[in-house]
């Protein structure tokens, strides 16, 4: 982890809202993070916490309407991606920043061959001619571990299994040697054995290509395996951000803590009952004025209802947004003991 290097991607105070018939939905509230070169940032959080929306709004991929940017800046290569022109943004999409989507079954266009879909960004961003693009596409497929790559370029997505389709998605995202790769739950829809294959592949590729990666997932196990740093999101906000070991060892936010306890372990002692996080995720109808986790938090105090806790740095590299972060650290330590 090359500490202190200039971040490739720097997001500051990103806000995204959805204008719906039922009113505004504040899906992303003041999210900030930065991505250092070659780093893998894991993003976890429960469903609907705004992980996908955050990442998609970086590149303006949300349907608009209803989505709308409500503030913040996304610095990439010295430019604010929220302000650049449409054509500049398109040059970044797929060219400098690759994107892998969650569902490999539907994210590929069913009526075009896999080859065509891989070649598209190549021809667009790298200006390759058809032949060269095809060669490169075959290399890419080979790179992501699909055997007999040159022949399979002519196949359609439905002729691939889920795992292979996800590899194709990865190949598309990698096509133009992006500086940043954003992977939105790339393995959630896959079997564990296939997931293991993909994770192995990404580890490999990272070593080979050295790009910075944002990896969204639900699965703390995956995060533990591949992330350098972890960002925990809740209710459209970043509630905790820490290096991976630090986070698993010393989670500071009650949500992170609860999350770590809900998952049964494969090897550890088998508890009698699983810990749960009761209650509902917040409905993001209004701009947050209280801690979004308050209603489900076992440690909530009146203060939590009055003020949305700001993100602060607890120890270097470890940020939390909780009024009682310090106390809770101790509580947990005690509980562990």
């Amino acid at each position, binding site marked *: 982890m090359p500490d202190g290097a200039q971040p490739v991607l720097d997001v500051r105070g990103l806000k995204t809202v959805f204008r719906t018939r*039922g009113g505004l939905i504040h899906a992303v509230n003041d999210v900030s993070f930065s991505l250092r070169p070659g780093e893998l940032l894991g993003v976890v959080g429960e469903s609907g916490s705004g992980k996908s929306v955050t990442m998609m709004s970086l590149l303006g991929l949300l349907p608009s309407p209803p989505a709308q940017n409500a503030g913040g800046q996304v610095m990439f290569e010295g430019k604010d991606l929220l302000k650049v022109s449409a054509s500049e943004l398109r040059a970044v999409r797929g060219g400098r920043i690759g994107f892998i989507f969650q569902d490999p079954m539907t994210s590929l266009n069913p009526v075009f061959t896999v080859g065509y879909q891989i070649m598209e960004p190549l021809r667009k961003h790298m200006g390759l001619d058809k032949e060269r693009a095809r060669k490169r596409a075959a290399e890419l497929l080979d790179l992501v571990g699909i055997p007999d790559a040159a022949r399979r370029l002519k196949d359609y997505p439905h002729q691939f299994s889920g795992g292979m389709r996800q590899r194709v998605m990865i190949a598309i995202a990698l096509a133009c040697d992006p500086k940043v790769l954003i992977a939105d739950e790339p393995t959630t829809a896959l079997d564990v054995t296939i997931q293991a294959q993909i994770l192995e592949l990404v580890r490999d590729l990272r070593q080979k290509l050295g790009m910075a990666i944002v990896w969204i997932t639900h699965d703390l196990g995956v995060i533990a395996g591949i992330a350098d740093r972890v960002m925990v999101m809740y209710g459209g906000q970043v509630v905790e951000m820490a290096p991976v070991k630090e986070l698993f060892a010393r989670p500071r936010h009650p949500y992170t803590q609860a999350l770590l306890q809900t998952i049964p372990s494969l090897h550890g002692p088998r508890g009698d009952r699983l810990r749960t996080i009761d209650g509902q995720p917040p409905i993001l109808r209004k701009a947050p004025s209280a801690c979004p986790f308050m209603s489900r938090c076992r440690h909530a105090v009146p203060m939590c209802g009055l003020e949305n806790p700001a993100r602060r740095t607890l120890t270097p590299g470890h940020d939390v947004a909780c009024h009682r972060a310090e106390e809770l650290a101790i509580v947990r330590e005690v509980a562990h003991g």
Partner: protein
Amino acid sequence: MTDAVTTTSARPPRNQWWDVWDQFKTHKGAMFGTVVFFAVIALIVLGPYIWAVDAKYINIRARDQGMSLTYPLGTDQLGRDMLARVIAGGKTTLAVGLAAMALSMLLGTLVGVLSGFFKRADGALMRLTDLFLALPLLPLLLLMVMLFREPLVMNFGPEMGIFILIVVAIAVTSWMNTARIVRGEVLTIKEREFVLAARSIGTPSRRIITRHILPSVMSPIMVSATLGIANAVITESALSFLGLGFPPDFPTWGRLLQDGMPYINLHPERVLWPALVLSALVLSVNYIGDGLRDALDPRIRGR
């Protein structure tokens, strides 16, 4: 640890149609359509009381009049009051449109659901549909009219008898598309997990159909139904044209259009008004269909 959504007391389940209406109200097009539709209905139902002129009364001395106070929409070539004829024609047209559409939907849905749901019936029913699709309409209608006109007229009187005949004739020749659409839809819905769930409960097929399948195919049916009304109305006018329709002195909008065509240059209003109300009817029904489709789907309703 309370639920984020808490309410005070348990309300008993309320009628689902209220929810439908609540959603329906929010659809601007549908509300517009409803207003127009009811305006047309009001014209037809209340019209005769407000404008108490006999649509069949011939005042030959006052023929071919333009629009005036005595004859708001003018008169036709025999001096019949056009407004009264439009009102009277609407009654038949609307009745034929609605009844034929309903019957056609019934047939189409029945065949579609049966062939989609029961694999064994599928082949035969789809061949039947092909057969009807490939049958030429005109001879079929001629035949139906020849075979059934007299008995129907004897049993139900000339107007009711022909009404039944026309409604049945239109329905019998127009259910096939609905059947195909419904079948396709049923085939996919049949594979959905909630149908499997119903099976695991032990719900017999017939109740699976009525409880789960039918409500789910409502929206394609709704769409065909709205198109069906327009289709029925237009077919009725074509039938009148071929002399198979209602007695000639019995106005329908289709017939008014037909009758007005030769005078289009001389008295364009004779075509204009029936065309206007006809379009208004079809258009409003279409918008209502749009609204209903949204309103009937709780998923959209929630948005």
